[in-house]
């Protein structure tokens, strides 16, 4: 004989099936009586489906207490009965607690997110401030380098001043201004082109000087 199934959570008791070898088997019910029982059972199931689990449990209990016969087929442990799903009915108070627990969880997560976002914003501001200081520092360096460049540019210009160069050449190097500049105009004999009128003097020490000198021979 099977043990009655009892759930700790749900007040549902399954009637143990009638043993097979019972000397006094139950007499078979009349057919009409079975049909009526079936209809009643179907209604009960439909009603239970609409009700919460705890109500279903109560309903089963109540129907059991009302003396409604359990479905003989169920009592007998038929495959149909085993396929029927059990409806678990929860306690209302426990559900409320669960809902409250979930809300707190969500609230905590939201608060945590908000704090994280706030910290993130503060962090970004700090980074921006740090970058701003860096940028200001760089701008200052750029301005300083520009000023340095301009000062050096002035220095170069002063060094290039004609009076400074002439003064240095005369006072330190003993150079004097040239009073006359001889202008030589070498011409190429037999050339059909016009006379080379380059006014430059033949540079002393130049590798081409011998050939130039030959060309200039006799030229006043």
């Amino acid at each position, binding site marked *: 004989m099977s043990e009655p199934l009892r759930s700790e959570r749900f007040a549902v008791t399954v009637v143990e099936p009638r043993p097979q070898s019972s000397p006094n088997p139950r007499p078979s019910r009349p057919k009409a009586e079975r049909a009526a029982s079936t209809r009643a059972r179907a209604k009960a199931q439909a009603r239970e489906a609409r009700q919460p689990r705890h109500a279903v449990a109560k309903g089963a209990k109540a129907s059991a207490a009302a003396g409604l016969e359990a479905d003989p087929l169920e009592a007998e442990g038929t495959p149909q009965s085993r396929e029927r799903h059990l409806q678990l009915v929860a306690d209302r108070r426990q559900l409320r607690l669960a809902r409250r627990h979930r809300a707190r969880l969500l609230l905590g997560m939201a608060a945590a997110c908000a704090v994280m976002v706030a910290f993130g914003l503060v962090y970004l501001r700090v980074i921006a401030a740090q970058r701003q200081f860096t940028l200001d520092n760089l701008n200052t360096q750029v301005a300083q380098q520009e*000023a340095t460049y301009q000062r050096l540019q002035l220095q170069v210009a002063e060094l290039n001043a004609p009076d400074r160069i002439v003064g240095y050449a005369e006072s330190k190097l*003993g150079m004097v201004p040239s009073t006359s500049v001889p202008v030589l105009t070498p011409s190429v004999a037999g050339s059909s082109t016009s006379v080379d009128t380059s006014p430059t003097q033949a540079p002393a020490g130049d590798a081409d000087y011998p050939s130039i000198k030959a060309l200039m021979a006799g030229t006043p």
Partner: protein
Amino acid sequence: MLVIIVASFVAIGARLAYIQGINAKHYLAVGASEWEHTITLDATRGAILDRNGDELAISTPQTTIYADPYQVTNPDLEAAKLAPVLGLTVAKLRSELTEPAGFVYLARTQPDAVANAVTKLKLAGIYNLQEPKRFNPAGQLALPLLGEVGTDGNGLSGLEAEYNSTLAGTPGKLVEELDPQGGQVAGGLQEYQAPKAGSDLVLTIDSSLQYEAEQALAQALVASHGKSGIAMLMDTKTGDLLAVADLSMPTAANTSSSAIPVAIPSLGRNAAGDWVSEVGPQPVESPGASAFDEVYEPGSVMKLITISAALANKVIIPSDHFLIPNTYQVGPTVFHDAENHPTEDWSVTDILANSSNIGTMQIAQRLGKTRLLQYMRSFGIGTRSDIHFPGESDGLLPSYWSDTSIATVPIGQGIAVTAIQMLAAYNAIANGGIYVAPRLVAGTINAQGKLVPTPAVPTHRVVSATVADEMRTMLEQVVTNGTGTSGAIPPYSVAGKTGTALVPLNGGYEAGHYVASFAGYAPAEAPSITAMVQIYDTPNFGATASAPAFAEIGRDALTQLQVPVPAPQPPAPGVPLATTSSANPFGELPSAALPTPTATVTAPASTTVSSVPASGSSGSSGSTVPTSATTTPKTRAGPATATPTTLSPGPSGT
């Protein structure tokens, strides 16, 4: 009670809505004015460069020391510490440090050494900021052209003033949020508008040639005992001014604290063996650009225009001969040449070579007043140049034509011109008869570094190429056989003309005070340069005072520009060479004795009466134009017995 509470809340709400909603903009603006700080970012002033890119004027940041008197804790102590560093008196500093103001300048644009010394003192309420300061790296070179810049960075004179908007650039702006301590709010409002740097000005001036011109002019000024001088050098083809030198001998009127004498090479060495500058008064840069804004009577250099006009109108041909007496009466006045001579039979070439006033007058009488004035205007006389230099004068043409004007104007007396006008006139002949507008500014370099050239000014033909060629031959004769031999630049051929005009003084003209000038171009066959030298108020004539300086400036320019010696060119067809030369090697002698007049020779009292500004009027300081109301004819009594001028031996040995 409840009603009162509710009413209070309603009132508060309404006020809140008013402040935050309706009048939000007003309060926002008030708040912005408290925390927003706008800083004007000065734009870097553009530099002035010569044609080779060398800086003639440049701005560099310098440190300005300022104080916040409200933060100064001990004015006496701080003034005592700052005084030796800044070079100011303690009393002056103390008065500034105790001013009821939040900002007061102590010293502007100081060198880095001074700024560092002040910083090291670490005085409360003493701060510094960077301000640009204008420098002229080449010293006083071309300073009359460049002009000056004020403390606030604005041009005050010369090109700095004329092109101030181009050089100044566009200032920028920085708007930032400041905390109550004055520090920038990190991450706060920051609007930055970058300043736009000023454009650089590129001149046509060559700083080397400018220096040489100033040195040559300085030597001529000292040697000829002149009061001031102008030397100009121009590129014949383009009209670019390569050098414009304006020098004056120092006087109480024209010597400022910033005037620095132009160094003149000495004749010897000092004990240390260094070459030393000449001792004694040395010329300084003129306070203004006399080449543009001062007028003078040009004298014989004007004869170029008279004879060119006569040739162009075919009233004469070069081979025409004129009988030139020693004196010549025009209207009530008897005129004479610079030297006594018997009646000569001279060609036009001879007239020009000998700078005969009488010959020129005869030619001018054939030409007539109308055509003479027409050609003078065509040569640019009476109109300011296209340079439009600040204060540039138009010159003066006679508005009243007297009986003697046909005699005086053609020889350059009784009119007033600027040096740039006369230079451009000679350049027109050098260019084959085409007037090329003088140019001083080649262009600008914008903030992006792009050169924007100055738009070219259209040229116009003044005389035909034939006339220009004829004038070339005659002007060459002036230099080879005439009064301008001192202006020769061997082996180049030079075409030029001397000029000696009387300086009006004390209401009249006096011998011994001349405006001596020489204008010409070289090489004559293929001109590359046109130059002019003018010495004002010298006892010497143009041949001795100005021609040698012209030769030196021309030689330096032809050498530096590597101008080849062209093949000799024959004289222009139909132009005779000079057959006579009454000039000695020194050209016109200062001892040219004025003839014993049979009639009183007076300065024409009726010329330029209404067209001449009174001396001392604006723009004509130092003007040599005679006054009108106070003209007093001077009587020359007998021949002058002036002593020949002894030339000071210059370094060139001429």
